């Protein structure tokens, strides 16, 4: 251990400038985090870009630091200094791991500790965040180590990395629609590279190094595969909660539309759901299957978006009046107007252009298998719409960082929210939002502007980045997102005029699943456009 530390100290001294830059990079990232948390330093988008750039730099710097550590005692050839000294490969590995543990473990953790305190982390969260930080930084080691051990300097390392990156880009560009192509690229990079390097060192009788490389990279490949699969193929909830609504709810295909792109198209499907109890909303997961008379079949999976969620709507997909949003009511005791319109579910899948062309030429049979989730909105907290008010629920903190009472281009007041929470292991964010996601793209928690005086809710929320999709910035395991809530009444209450901010409050709402069940639907002739006239519900 003493000699391993001796080797590590040598590397730390050699790389002191690089380590100082690495430290500065982490500090800069945390600086952006502080600006985001306290709503200073400009708009969200530029800060998000800076944060993303710093995250990219951090990944590159992490990989280069790993390479620099390895290249301090080159493992290839026969002229390296350490090879003729009493340094076994096991001791060398020990030294390198110790050095990397300091740079990629101890230094980031020490710097992140105050940041976590600022963000209100408890002991357990800090422990989890530490593990996550170390695991993320370990990915730099896994990604960089194989190539670094096979090269004898930065030049060859960069050349090898360039070849790898080019290969991955080629795979991504040439096979974007092949399921798992990205996964294969990751596996080839991390697992395959590690196995090649491990075998190389075993062949050269560096048993310890070869063994460590092989086992680490195989483990990393398995880990990456599991994470990749968890993200890509988010499984449907295994727990089935059929309730009384399961029988009453019926689905019918309302409309389908497509937006063509160069080589692909977005196919959007709108479904009308009847029998949905008041005060409830729907979400879910869909499996679509198109079958032609010649036996051809295409199957796609996608998430359902609920009534008020504006992810898929607009002229590009549907005729506007067909799928109007339903007013949304939450249990706030408001005297909101009743609306008896049926619920709307929308779902979109990306398909090749050829698929759309074929559907237009030859209408296939369509079958939907829908996993429906019936959710009840519950108010987690409500605060006056004033700057610096906070809504704290569980591990999430929401702060109103700005409130503007109308402007030249806005007729209604709008508010900027800043929301942050631990995003440990990415299990509770993913896909562009802070807060747990339940089914697919739909955040389980959301915000509403409440006008208690006039008695309406505004559901017109959007992030500063994209009106249809919130974007999260992850800084040191903390997820941060800015949202803007418009005080304009939703289209469901067109007659109402906006109220002044002092009459508004902001409510944080969580959607809790009450029932889960499966519905199926079959359409004999699936057509783009007015297909609802020809479809029929299977049950």
């Amino acid at each position, binding site marked *: 251990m003493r000699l391993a530390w001796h080797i590590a100290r040598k590397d730390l001294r050699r790389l002191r400038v690089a380590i100082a830059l690495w430290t500065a990079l982490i500090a800069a990232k945390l600086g952006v985090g502080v600006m985001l948390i306290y709503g200073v330093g400009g708009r969200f988008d530029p800060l998000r870009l800076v944060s993303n750039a710093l995250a990219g730099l951090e990944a590159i710097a992490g990989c280069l630091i790993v390479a620099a550590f390895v290249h301090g005692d080159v493992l290839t050839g026969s002229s390296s*200094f350490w090879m003729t000294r*009493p340094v076994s490969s096991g001791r060398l590995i020990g030294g390198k791991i110790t050095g990397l543990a300091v740079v990629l473990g101890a230094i980031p953790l020490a710097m992140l500790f105050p940041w976590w305190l600022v963000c209100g982390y408890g002991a357990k969260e800090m422990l989890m965040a530490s593990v996550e930080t170390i695991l993320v930084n370990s990915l730099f080691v896994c990604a960089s180590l194989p190539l670094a051990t096979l090269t004898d300097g930065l030049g060859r390392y960069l050349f090898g990395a360039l070849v790898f990156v080019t290969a991955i880009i080629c795979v991504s560009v040439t096979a974007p629609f092949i399921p798992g192509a990205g996964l294969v690229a990751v596996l080839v990079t991390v697992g395959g590279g590690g196995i090649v390097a491990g075998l190389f060192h075993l062949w050269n009788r560096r048993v310890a190094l070869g063994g460590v490389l092989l086992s680490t990279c195989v483990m990393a490949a398995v880990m990456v595969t599991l994470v990749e699969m968890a993200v890509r193929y988010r499984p449907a909830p295994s727990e089935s909660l059929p309730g009384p609504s399961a029988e009453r709810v019926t689905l019918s295909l309302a409309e389908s539309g497509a937006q063509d792109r160069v080589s692909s198209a977005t196919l959007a499907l709108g479904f009308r759901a009847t029998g949905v109890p008041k005060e409830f909303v729907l979400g879910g997961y869909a499996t679509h299957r198109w079958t032609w008379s010649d036996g051809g079949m295409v199957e796609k999976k996608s998430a359902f978006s609920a009534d008020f969620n504006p992810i898929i709507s607009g002229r590009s997909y549907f005729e506007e009046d067909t799928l109007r949003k339903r007013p949304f009511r939450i249990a706030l005791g408001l005297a909101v107007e009743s609306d008896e319109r049926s619920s709307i579910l929308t779902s979109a899948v990306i398909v090749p252009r050829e698929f759309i062309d074929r559907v237009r030429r030859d209408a296939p049979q369509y079958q939907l298998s829908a996993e429906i989730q019936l959710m009840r909105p519950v108010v987690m907290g409500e605060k006056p719409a004033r700057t610096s008010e906070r809504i704290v629920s569980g591990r999430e903190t929401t702060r109103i960082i700005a409130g503007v009472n109308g402007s030249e281009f806005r007729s209604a007041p709008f508010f900027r929210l800043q929301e942050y929470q631990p995003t440990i292991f990415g299990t509770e964010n993913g896909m562009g939002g802070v807060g747990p996601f339940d089914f697919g793209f739909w955040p389980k928690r959301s915000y509403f502007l409440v006008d208690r005086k006039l008695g309406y809710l505004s559901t017109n929320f959007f992030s500063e980045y994209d009106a249809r999709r919130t974007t999260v910035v992850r800084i040191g395991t903390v997820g941060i997102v800015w949202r803007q809530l418009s005080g304009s009444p939703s289209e469901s209450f067109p007659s109402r005029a906006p109220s002044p901010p002092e009459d508004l409050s902001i409510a944080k709402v969580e959607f809790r699943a009450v029932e889960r069940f499966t519905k199926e639907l079959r359409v004999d002739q699936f057509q783009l456009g007015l297909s609802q006239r020809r479809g029929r519900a299977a049950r």
Partner: protein
Amino acid sequence: MNIIETTGLTRRFGRTEAVHDLTLAVPEGSVCALLGSNGAGKSTTIKVLMNLFSPTAGSARVLGVDTRKLGERERAQIGYVSENQQMPLWMTVRQLLDYCRPFYPTWDRALEKNLLAQFALPEDRKLKHLSRGMLMKAALLSSLAYRPKLLVLDEPFSGLDPLVREEFVRGVLEVSESGNWTVLVSSHDIEEVERLCDRVVLLDAGRKGLDETTEALQARFRRVEVTGAPAEAQPAPTMLGWGREGALTRFVASDYAGEMTERLWREKFPGAAIVAQPMSLREIFITLAKQSRTAGDGKGAAA
């Protein structure tokens, strides 16, 4: 006890055989030179002995251990200096010594100090700012200060000016004479090696040409000039580089054994004047190399 032993050692790189069936024994306390022209297999042999290459066939043992199993304990008793060794150039001389010291339980601070003074190395200068000669001396210092049982020098004199060579050789000589050290030095710089070694192994195209003490080698080789040899006189197999210029016949005798050999020459060249002179190691090496080339089959050096 032999510090180095090889038996039928062979090392191939693809179809090229760098070392062929080399059997060698270097006794403890000897200073052995591996001689040979470029590509003779000297560095490959040393790298196999240092476990930088593994043997394709045969075996090699250093300090009684199979080279493939050389561990930290054995390496702590071996000093290695090579012209091609990658030194940590970012370190200063002092940092190099500080870095190396903990790896060697037998590190001698007093010897380190003496050698530092003897080699006149600037402690605070980075290795990358040292001249080639200084760098080699720094490498030698870091390999001598722990009093290794075996010192391996692979082409240590390449690119060094005469003054630095002198200092280098003097350093090795002083240290090796102060203890029962074994030194293996590979070089094609024969003059320097001649001062150092007491044993010579000649390699030619990966094969061992000769292996004997310098004393024995210089004793059995003579440059001979015969004036008035009969015209019909033919060279014996042990008479190398046979040539005639008028009445003068020249050759190199590779089996000189004193009075007995001279008597045989007088019988072979009756009435002729015979002058036999001792040869330097360099002259012997050149004679054998020429003979090897003339023979063409790579075995001619086995005189």
